[in-house]
């Protein structure tokens, strides 16, 4: 298989279709979607809302089954959630009855030893800058802090790929741009593969090495762009602005 030969390849989505059925008919959410993502890469999937980008991410995560086609992770067919992938959802989805510390180590209990869990939890919380809040409960956190805990929880799971579903869309503009910078920092420190779904073109341009533009009804990948700009990215350069215009034009 070509997938096994290519050592760099981590995720391969191959001819994926998804149809949702309901009482009033069926919706073709995804049509013949193909994409690849290499190890260590930061990839963004951008598209208007309702274009199926979240569905695509959920299929990669194994939370949803494709109606047709396959997803391969390191050459193995994805058949459900796995410990090699961790999802950060649009909302933090923290457990209100657990402290920050326990929320972070959520996926680890029963898998790792107590001392290992403690170490990983502390490292993950340190990475998102919340080590001093480990005894706090979610109701005591701001939206940005809660989403950081969700990211720490994903990191602590020690996945090969982080799957982020519009993780900053519910945050205010200032917090969002701070979190974006932190995410780049995190990616460079941990060398994790990141797949980000967003409707925010600016965000995709600031963060990713590769942008996949999706078009709606049915959702399909229209174009893949390599983003050549160095990090940290300057949003005011002519090239950046041009590229943003180009994507904006092509997204609808």
């Amino acid at each position, binding site marked *: 298989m070509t997938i096994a030969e290519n050592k760099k390849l981590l995720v391969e989505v191959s001819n994926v279709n998804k149809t949702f059925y309901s009482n009033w008919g069926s919706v073709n959410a995804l049509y013949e979607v193909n994409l690849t993502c290499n190890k260590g890469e930061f990839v963004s999937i951008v598209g208007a809302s309702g274009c199926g980008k979240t569905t695509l991410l959920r299929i990669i995560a194994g*939370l949803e089954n494709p109606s047709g086609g396959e997803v391969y992770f390191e050459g193995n067919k994805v058949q459900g*959630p796995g410990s090699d992938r961790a999802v950060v959802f649009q*909302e933090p989805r923290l*457990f209100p009855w657990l402290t920050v510390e326990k929320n972070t180590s959520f*996926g680890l209990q*029963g898998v790792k030893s107590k001392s290992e869990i403690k170490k990983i939890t502390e490292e993950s919380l340190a990475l998102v800058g919340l080590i001093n809040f480990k005894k706090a409960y*979610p109701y005591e956190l701001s939206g940005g802090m809660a989403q950081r805990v969700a990211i720490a929880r994903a990191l602590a*799971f020690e996945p090969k790929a982080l799957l982020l579903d519009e993780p900053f869309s519910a945050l205010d503009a200032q917090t969002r741009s701070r979190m974006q910078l932190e995410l780049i920092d995190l990616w460079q420190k941990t060398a994790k593969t990141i797949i980000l779904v967003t409707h925010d073109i600016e965000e995709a341009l600031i963060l990713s090495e590769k942008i996949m533009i999706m078009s709606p009804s049915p959702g399909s990948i229209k174009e893949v762009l390599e983003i050549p700009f160095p990090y940290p990215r300057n949003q005011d350069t002519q090239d950046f602005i041009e590229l943003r215009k180009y994507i904006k034009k092509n997204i609808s």
Partner: protein
Amino acid sequence: MVIIKLFSNNKTINTILRGAAFPFLIIVLWEIAFRLGMLNALIVPSPMAIGHTFMKMLFNGLLGKHLLASTIRLTYGFFISVLSAVPLGLLVGKAKGFRHWVNPTLSFLQQIPPIAWIPIFILWLGIDEASKVAVIIYAAFFPIFLNTVQGVTSVDPKLVEVGRAYMLSPIQMIRKVYVPSAGMSIFVGIRLGLSNCWRALVMAEMIAASTGIGSLITEGRQLSQPDKIFVSILTIGMAGLIIDTLLKKMENRLMPWKKMYRSGERG
């Protein structure tokens, strides 16, 4: 800090004072009416007389003895009820197929007040402890069971999905997502169940018992001692109140995150 603490203390004192104002008013009016000769002492004793009987019964150990008998029954029945209603509630809430098998039966049983079972329980289990414990189990079962089912069925599917994404086993999913999530509702059920079985116990003891706080009422009626009846009623109410307060305190201790919901309600 100190100022805030004092303030909050004042606030609780205020709440207590406000809550006690109405009963205090009733007692004063009652006592006045009695002193003015408006009440027949044989039927309506004065608050002072009731207080006197209360102290007498407290210090000669009569009240303690009966209260202890009631408490022991309550403890047995209540724990058996919790241990059966919670697991069954989890099962029924989680397994939709199972629900169809037991729901009609349970809905039927739910309509029958505990007191209706007392004669049959006595017939089957004898006049001793077993029949009274059975009534308590029955009385506490439904609030606990129904609230457990409700708790399980109203678990946030988004949190269940997090559990799925983080590869929880079915058992872990129940332990780490369903049980704590349903915990609040289960606890409400436990509180309701406990006050329910406290009331059912008094009824059962009134019908057939020689010990227990309910039997004191029957004794008071048979011997024409209304002061004894009032003391019993007072004790029942206060004991119930204390139990409920303790459970509320426990709830706050076990579920500090409940504050989130409270602040949510306020905002």
